[in-house]
């Protein structure tokens, strides 16, 4: 077996992180809640999740397997390895669990939930677009499932993060960062942002999963479920900063920061603000590390308690204590992040995308400060505010008490992904919420991968050669080129394998074999792929 060398798809040289912000790479993951029309699902949750994934129409994926070879979720960024069984399903189980998508992403079952991992994206617009494409794919599965179910049962699928009874499932963001940024700097610099950003990107929740009294409505679905400032586990004892060190790329150059505190937003604007603000904070952290400039990001004395408190405080006024001993409000924290980031970019220069994002971020914070008096359109942009307004309107008009179960139902159904019954979808269709995207952009993302990351190569190959691509993973694709052994094509650099660099080659090739030959001719001869014999 040979080690991959430079070619069109993988380079030993570190590159790409000096590109403009939205040339940075982000991938997001959405886990869905499911139930029958009665609300129950019980022990069949896992089975039904598998059935759903297996109902994915052939238009969106081939029969390729998911390649687990390079996965290792037990390596901790603090420098140790945790004991745990790595997943290695057999062929049948693999196929039953996974779809490697033509759009470059992955649809699968994680635990007992359907999960969609969007492909790697290099622009905010793509992040939003491909996340919504995931909902559409799951909706297609759902319709096919119902049509084929002999029992004629109906299913509900929710893009949310908690059931109200203390169970949570995730929404994860993944940011590609330079390995040069020490993990301690991430912990110190990012934690207060993850806590404070829920004022604009919380998805809103009726009541408390922990049975807390006097909390009729919270900003965040997820905040209550965090118990540690830092931790590796994603399913219990969750930490605000997750330490999983699984870069799915060249470990010596990159880390993939796995952020698990976020909610599954429905609003396109809230998603863009969530990812965009976090990208800019990370960018400034990384650049300040490189240039040795110090930053003034706030550090919370007790981030876990603060996270819980912020989520339950719709006044944004309750004081939070910093490690300096001073107190500050959550909007004070959010403004300090914005000011630091803005100062950095006004000094270093910014493009129009960064300028627009900073402008949007700052308008939202300004309006939040006066939210109680005048929502000023935030109840058309931010999920928690859209949801809160909808629920309050309904409650007042129908004369319901605070504890009425219809309020919790409105909350759940806000996240129903189906266009015919989802309340967010209803509000959106009626022009009650602001949008970023044209619906056609989303439809395109169901079948076409992003053009400017390695997802282009993965997705295009899967669609172009459905019989020859045997398996796909984030960092490689395995093809059967007709020779006695399978070939693994490494995709170790997320910035390579773009339409610009390999689009023509993929278009021209009549077979995977021809494509491999083309890649070899483009890069270093004989060493672009590993022989897996």
């Amino acid at each position, binding site marked *: 077996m040979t080690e991959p060398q430079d070619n069109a798809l993988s380079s030993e040289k570190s590159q790409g992180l000096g590109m403009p912000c939205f040339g940075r790479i982000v991938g997001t993951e959405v*886990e869905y*809640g*499911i*139930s029958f*029309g*009665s*609300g*129950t*699902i*019980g022990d069949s*949750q*896992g089975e039904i999740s598998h059935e759903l994934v297996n109902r994915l129409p052939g238009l969106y994926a081939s029969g390729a397997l998911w390649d687990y070879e390079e996965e290792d979720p037990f390596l901790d960024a603090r420098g140790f390895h945790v004991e745990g069984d790595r997943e290695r399903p057999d062929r049948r189980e693999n196929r039953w669990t996974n779809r490697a998508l033509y759009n470059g992403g992955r649809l699968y079952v*994680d*635990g*007992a*939930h359907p999960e969609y991992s969007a492909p790697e994206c290099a622009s905010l617009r793509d992040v939003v677009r491909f996340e919504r494409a995931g909902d559409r794919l799951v909706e297609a599965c759902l319709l096919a499932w119902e049509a084929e179910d002999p029992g004629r049962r109906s299913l509900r699928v929710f893009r949310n993060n908690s*059931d*109200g*009874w203390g*169970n*949570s*499932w*995730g929404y*994860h963001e993944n940011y590609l960062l330079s390995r040069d940024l020490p993990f301690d700097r991430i912990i110190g610099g990012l934690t207060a942002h993850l806590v404070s950003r829920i004022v604009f990107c919380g998805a809103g929740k009726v009541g408390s999963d922990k049975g807390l009294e006097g909390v009729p409505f919270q900003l965040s679905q997820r905040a209550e479920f965090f118990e540690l400032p830092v931790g590796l586990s*994603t*399913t*219990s004892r969750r930490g605000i900063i997750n330490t999983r060190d699984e870069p799915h790329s060249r470990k010596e150059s990159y880390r993939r920061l796995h952020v*698990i505190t976020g909610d599954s937003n429905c609003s396109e604007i809230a998603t863009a603000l969530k990812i965009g603000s976090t990208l800019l904070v990370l960018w400034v952290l990384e650049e300040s590390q490189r240039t040795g400039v110090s930053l003034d990001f706030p550090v919370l004395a007790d981030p876990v308690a603060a996270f819980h408190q912020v989520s339950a405080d719709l006044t944004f006024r309750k004081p939070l204590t910093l490690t300096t001993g001073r107190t500050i409000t959550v909007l004070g924290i959010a403004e300090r992040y914005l000011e630091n980031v803005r100062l950095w970019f006004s000094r270093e220069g910014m493009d129009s995308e960064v300028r*627009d994002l900073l402008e*949007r971020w700052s*308008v939202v914070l300004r*309006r939040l400060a006066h939210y109680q008096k*005048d929502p*000023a*359109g935030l109840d058309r942009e931010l999920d928690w505010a859209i949801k809160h307004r*909808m629920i309050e*309107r*309904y409650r007042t*008009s*129908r004369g319901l008490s605070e504890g009425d*179960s*219809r309020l*919790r*139902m*409105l909350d*759940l*159904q806000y996240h129903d992904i189906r266009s*015919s*019954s989802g*309340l967010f979808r*209803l*509000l959106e269709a*009626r022009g*009650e919420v*602001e*949008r*970023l995207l044209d619906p056609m952009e989303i439809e395109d993302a169901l079948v076409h991968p992003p053009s400017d990351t390695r997802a282009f190569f993965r997705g295009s190959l899967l669609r172009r050669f459905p019989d020859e691509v045997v398996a796909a993973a984030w960092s490689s694709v395995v093809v059967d080129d007709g020779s006695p052994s399978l070939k693994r094509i490494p995709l170790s650099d997320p910035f390579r394998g773009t339409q610009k660099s390999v689009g023509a080659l993929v278009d021209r090739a009549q077979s995977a074999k021809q494509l491999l030959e083309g890649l070899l001719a483009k890069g270093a001869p004989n060493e672009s792929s590993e022989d897996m014999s």
Partner: protein
Amino acid sequence: MSQKEKESRKRDESGDPTPESEVPAGAQERAKKVQEEADDILDKIDEVLEKNAASFVKSFIQKGGQ
């Protein structure tokens, strides 16, 4: 950013909202229309909202995830 949103931002930043005494004629009509639309949405929500809300939210229990 949508056109609508740009307009609302412009309006927002031009200063204080117009005082009520200066609301031009026809505003009442518009307010009425907004109210009707709001009622219409609530009716639409009623149409699609699960009828068995009480038992649904009680039964909706998921296996924990990530």
